[in-house]
């Protein structure tokens, strides 16, 4: 029995009633990371001393009867593209391998204000570009349920550390499914909030109009707790929503009877793994039995979601990643001596000059293949003569996708479907075939394109022993509805309580 078998809410109650000290919780978390993480590889950086010091400070203040924050003493892991002033922030890229931001992201500042313990930084696909965490330039992360399989991505490290009970709470980011898909692959609960619900200030941008930070936890209740502490308007982020933050924990306690759920029949009946089809269908029976009203519904334009996404996201990325040029910070390629240059490089040197050559070599060696692929895609799509055919057209389709949702939410309160067409795949299975990797995002990208919330919760396990995710989506700022449905489901089932086999 580990302290970390408890949910975040249970731990919080133990801490608040002085039955455990923050230092015990953090020590337990650190020792589990030390013992269990090496074969999994979720963490890129463990904030050992800082976390212990912060925990002792919480204990001291609690002992003195001084006020403490809403998450006082709870360890939280951060996907390593959220800026922390006291820890490296690498984006799992060579480009930022030694980068230490001089400032905290707004979510980090809010977590510190809530006295959460920032326990470390988790692995991801390089700059969050990927669906398996295989594109991390720094480390491989394995799926705790089967180490031959990927944890999903790009928030693979955060998903794996939650699934392994290393920490109770983690933050991920979701640009096209990067919270929900690894949550599904690792059998945990992951919420992508409405665009603008959580500040992006200090989140290193992949695709600014799609990126959103969200909680990754073991249950919807814990997700509600973490969302509560991080959501809200931020004047440093012009795109953050000035919309009141509801009481999520209060919301989840409401019964779901009478809530109308639209079943995304087309997604379910498409080329989805039969075990996923069965698990998702069974989940609808559970929700129906709890009083939810189900009907089939269609999002006709969502079939264009992947194509649209893979224009818009690379376009924005090509510009967002232009700053990594070796001039001001981060990686800079060393200049080769004349003898080390290939003949063609010598010729290039003649024509391009030392500055352009430094740019080229830095970006050539600093970025991995997937990042370079997307930068090239985006640069191409934004180029004169192609802009209208790609970027502009994609923006038009994006509006159509949003309209599909708006129409659907006139009829129902939430949409239900599978998170992914398949369970977690094996390493290398898709990394050589980018298109098949991209197509795996089919069910998740539309929510990002429409800026709407989506939630993934475990709803089954395949015969092979891999988790299956249930996708719940809702209209703008419907996080309370989604969490309420998820919580009701988790009260009625125990899929979220299943643990990977210990090896």
């Amino acid at each position, binding site marked *: 029995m580990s302290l970390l078998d408890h949910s975040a809410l249970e731990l919080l109650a133990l801490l608040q009633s002085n039955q455990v000290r923050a230092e015990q919780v953090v020590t337990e978390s650190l020792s589990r990371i030390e013992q269990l993480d090496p074969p999994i590889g979720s963490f890129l950086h463990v904030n050992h001393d800082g976390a212990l010091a912060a925990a002792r400070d919480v204990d001291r203040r609690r002992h003195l009867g001084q006020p403490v924050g809403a998450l006082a003493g709870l360890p939280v892991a951060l996907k390593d*593209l*959220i*800026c922390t002033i006291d820890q490296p*922030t690498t*984006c799992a890229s060579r480009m*930022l391998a030694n*980068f230490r*931001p*001089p*400032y905290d*992201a707004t979510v980090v500042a809010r977590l510190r204000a809530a006295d959460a313990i920032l326990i470390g930084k988790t692995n991801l696909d390089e700059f969050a570009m990927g669906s398996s965490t295989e594109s991390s330039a720094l480390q491989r992360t394995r799926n705790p349920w089967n180490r031959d399989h990927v944890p999903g991505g790009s928030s693979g490290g955060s998903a794996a550390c939650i699934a392994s009970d290393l920490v109770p709470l983690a933050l991920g980011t979701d640009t096209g499914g990067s919270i929900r898909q690894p949550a599904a692959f690792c059998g945990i609960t992951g919420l992508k909030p409405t665009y603008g619900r959580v500040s*992006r*200030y*200090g*989140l*290193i*941008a992949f*695709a*600014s*109009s799609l990126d959103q930070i969200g909680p990754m936890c073991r249950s919807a209740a814990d997700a509600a707790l973490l969302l509560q502490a991080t959501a809200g308007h931020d*004047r*440093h*982020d*012009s*795109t953050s929503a000035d919309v009141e933050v509801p009481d999520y924990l209060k919301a989840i306690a409401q019964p779901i009877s009478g809530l109308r759920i639209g079943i995304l029949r087309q997604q379910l009946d498409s080329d989805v793994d039969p075990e996923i089809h069965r698990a998702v269908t069974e989940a609808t029976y559970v929700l129906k039995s709890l009083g939810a009203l189900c009907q089939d519904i269609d999002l006709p334009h969502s079939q264009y979601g992947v194509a649209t996404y893979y224009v818009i996201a690379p*376009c*924005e990325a*090509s*510009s967002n*990643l*232009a*700053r990594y*040029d070796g*001039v*001001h*910070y981060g990686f800079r390629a060393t200049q080769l001596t004349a003898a080390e240059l290939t003949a063609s490089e010598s010729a290039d040197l003649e024509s391009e000059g030392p*500055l*352009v050559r430094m*740019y080229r070599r830095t970006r050539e060696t600093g970025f991995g293949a997937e990042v370079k692929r997307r930068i090239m895609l985006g*640069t191409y799509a*934004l*180029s*004169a003569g192609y*802009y209208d055919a790609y*970027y502009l057209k994609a923006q038009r389709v994006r509006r159509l996708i949003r309209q599909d949702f708006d129409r659907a939410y006139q009829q129902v309160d939430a949409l239900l479907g599978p998170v992914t067409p398949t369970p977690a795949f094996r390493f290398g299975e898709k990394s050589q075939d980018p298109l098949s990797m991209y197509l795996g995002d089919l069910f998740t990208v539309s929510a990002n394109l429409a800026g709407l919330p989506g939630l993934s919760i475990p709803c089954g396990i395949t015969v092979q022993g891999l988790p299956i995710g249930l996708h719940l989506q809702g209209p703008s700022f419907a996080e309370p509805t989604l969490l309420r449905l998820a919580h009701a489901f988790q009260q009625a089932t125990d899929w979220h309580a299943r643990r990977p086999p210990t090896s």
Partner: protein
Amino acid sequence: MTPPPTSTPPPVGAVRPYTVIVGLEVHVQLATHTKLFCRCPVKFGAPPNTQTCPVCIGLPGALPVLNETAYYLSVVTALALNCEIPAYTKWDRKNYYYPDLPKGYQISQFDLPMSCNGWLDLSDAQGRCSNRRIRIIRAHLEEDAGKSMHDEIAGRADTRIDLNRTGTPLLEIVSQPDLRSSAEAKAYLTELKLLLTYLGVSDCNMQEGSLRVDANVNLHIPVGSGTPEEIIETPIVEIKNMNSFRAVERALDFEVDRQYREWQATGKQKGEMPKQTRGWDDIHEVTKPQRSKEESSDYRYFPDPDLVPVTTTTDQLEAIRSTLKELPAALRLRLITDYGVTPYDADVIVNQGRTLADYFLAVADQCGDGKQACNWVTQEVLRSMKEGNLTIESFPIPSLELGRLIQSVQAGKLPRSRAKEVFGVMLEQILDLDTTLSRLGIQAVDSGALTDLGRELLAANPKVVADVQAGKEQAIGALVGQAKKSNPNVDPGVMRQILLDLIRQSAG
């Protein structure tokens, strides 16, 4: 393809056989305390890289937030330039690589600028150019880049980057190619700068880079004898690096001649070569080809997803319009119609800036005579300012005192002949009017006393009376001199008239 012309260049002084086509892009630094998308100060001259933050140095994860004041100042300017302000404007990224551009893109405005389709009237009564309406294509807001300092450490081929300036708000005002000479270009810039300073939206300091000008210039050369006459356009050249209006004027003059000579030599027309950028070399007074620092001409503009579009309602615009300060052109008109000032003098006063114009207005309102006020301000005040190297802000004679001085002359309390002397003493010794008058012993002399004095003088000088009656009116001058000797406050003109009147009366 037109063959190179065989004609020789026209002799110096001959009418130029072409029309000069100039359009100007003016970058104005708006007078905000902080940068366009962060809260860093924009004070000039701070040590390098001390006015920076994660946003303006483009650190990963940092996000821009619009400075509302900068947007407000740009709306004020655009309204004053008679621009349309669309209800919706957005921000775009202009992507290019350069070390002083830390994000790898500049936040600017591409296809939906915050204003468009305006104009600026040139009405130069001083005769430097004709009355012209110069159309303005657009004015848009953008952030400045940093500063690259090349080779500033002796013996090291380093470039150092100062990012203090990065993110400074600039309003780029783009004119139509409506300017037809370097003199017109200068007049446009002068009027634009005047307007900006009247509005208070910029300090327009060219040395500190708060006003920068790029010029696009080419020539329209009529060829052949057909009707309508066939026009050849020379390739457009963009001139950069001009750091004074005088430099703009000279660079344009040089470039016009250079283009004409080049056309004669090569016959190259617009479209036959890419747009060229040339830099003005102020020392050698030539333009030189410049490699554009923005290597690529494809900036891959797209809407900045980190910023939200700005919407402006008609009500908001009207509210801003109603607070607009009086513009130079309106003030000139007011001086002419309400104060009886000549167009030439109105130009002189208004072009000195709002403070001098206010000084004039106060003088004129005090003395009630616009023409006299104008004479004093455009002659004595401006001359004294120039000689003493003074600004109107530091001018020792307050406008009300000068107004009272003029009033005293009009009321006969101060002899016209001594008014400049009084002005001089007030200026030198920084005294008010009353103190100056009493120090100089100037008192009003009433006309009864003057008539008595005249009778005495005429009685004592019958020869003068006879001379005058014989038609030698100038003989009276001797008596005027005697009158001044007996009382220095005597106004010679007034005295002369009294004496002549007395002689006429006695004769009648």
